[in-house]
């Protein structure tokens, strides 16, 4: 088993988000959800990160930033688009300066829809990403270059309604665990 799944460090980038999703991302770190249980740490440095959380859509100004953060992350790495704006542009999709979702600039491995995406859903998205991380790590070990993320992406893409269901489950689990603690 690859250790990368036991300690996914996250770098969080706010594209042109309304900050709704950002607050939910931060909520994941708070004692209520406490993602550090899974070894998740929010690092500010792409060079240390394994998971790239992007909130908000990509526009002309920040597309290079998103691309560069992605490039600066060492393999294996996954990109999680958080919120509907990051998934495909959301309500801003038709704005003059918006390119669309994050996948217009970099390959995205997991889509977490929602407006704003709920912490449970975000955690669920990251945990889904861990499977991809594992696969990428194995691919690295086998000598091949990491599997291009585009091939994986559609499989992970889920409509908002469907994504909500597992997210609810996660929430239940979390509540239970929190209760025990």
């Amino acid at each position: 088993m690859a250790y990368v799944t036991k300690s996914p460090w996250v770098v969080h980038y706010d594209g042109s988000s309304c900050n709704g999703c950002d607050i939910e991302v931060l909520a994941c770190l708070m004692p209520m959800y406490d993602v550090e249980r899974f070894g998740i740490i929010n690092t500010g440095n792409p060079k240390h990160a394994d998971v790239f959380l992007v909130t908000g859509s990509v526009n002309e100004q920040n597309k290079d930033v998103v691309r560069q953060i992605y490039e600066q992350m060492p393999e294996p790495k996954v990109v999680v688009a958080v919120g509907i704006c990051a998934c495909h542009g959301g309500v801003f999709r038709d704005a003059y300066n918006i390119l669309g979702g994050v996948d217009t600039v970099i390959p995205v491995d997991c889509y977490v829809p929602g407006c704003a995406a709920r912490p449970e859903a975000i955690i669920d998205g990251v945990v889904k990403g861990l499977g991809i991380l594992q696969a990428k790590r194995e691919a690295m070990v086998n000598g091949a270059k990491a599997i291009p993320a585009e091939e994986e992406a559609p499989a992970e893409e889920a409509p908002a309604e469907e994504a909500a269901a597992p997210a609810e489950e996660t929430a239940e689990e979390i509540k239970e665990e929190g209760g025990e603690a």
Partner: protein
Amino acid sequence: MVIKVISVIAYLVLAPIVGCILAGLDRKVSAKMQRRVGPPILQPYYDVRKLFEKEKMAPTRYQDFYIIAYLVFLIGAGAIFFAGGDLLLVIFTETIGAAFLVIAAYSSNSPYAEVGAERELLQMMAYEPMMLLTAVGFYMFHGSFTVDDLVKPDTMAFLPMIGLFIGFIYILTIKFRKSPFDLSMSHHAHQELVRGVTTEFVGRTMGWIEVSHWYENIFLLGFIFLFFCNGTVWGCVIGALVCIAAYFLEVFIDNSFARMKWQFAFKSAWIVAIVLGMVNIFILQLVF
């Protein structure tokens, strides 16, 4: 001689294990203090293993050399300590290790790494007088700089050297990179200066840095142990207990204070060294 070799090997093997577990406990305790569940105890180990799995990258061709030198000298400092070597030599060897870490950060010419490196330098300047004074205090009390002699004296150095002990605990906060003095890089708030001195260390390099912290923490605790040695078993027991207590005191301090400005870190460390360290040295000179 055989004992020395065994203790060095034990240090090389056990220090990262104990250091790792202590680091894990640190995170667990911090989490509990914040009413969180916290990561598994072995989380630091997973982190390091993960870092070793990552792609190899570096900003320059020279970084590797500096980091290897850092590791060699830092671990070497601990090895000299556990081989019963000279306390001053241990401190100097550690300084050269720290110097290489700083140079490694500088060499990338990255603004964040450089600001981190300069803060690291400031911290070195802040804690070094106190460390040297502690060694001098041991020499004045026990008449020897070598750890060999310091672990088997007749009397416990703790009470006559209480000023130096408190001063040492004070700078231990800087050495452990704990708040309020986690200026150059911080273990918990991962956003200070991006990642301060370690900003440009990727994957495996970063992994080695973490491992070196485990080594460093253990031999710093060794310093505390020396305050309690008096040649008997219960002295060792007290020493070991105080080491653990000191470690968790630092964790407690870490979680109870906000980060201070560099001016405070520097001035307070020097004032502590002057007031507690120098006065204690003066008293030792008068009495012994």
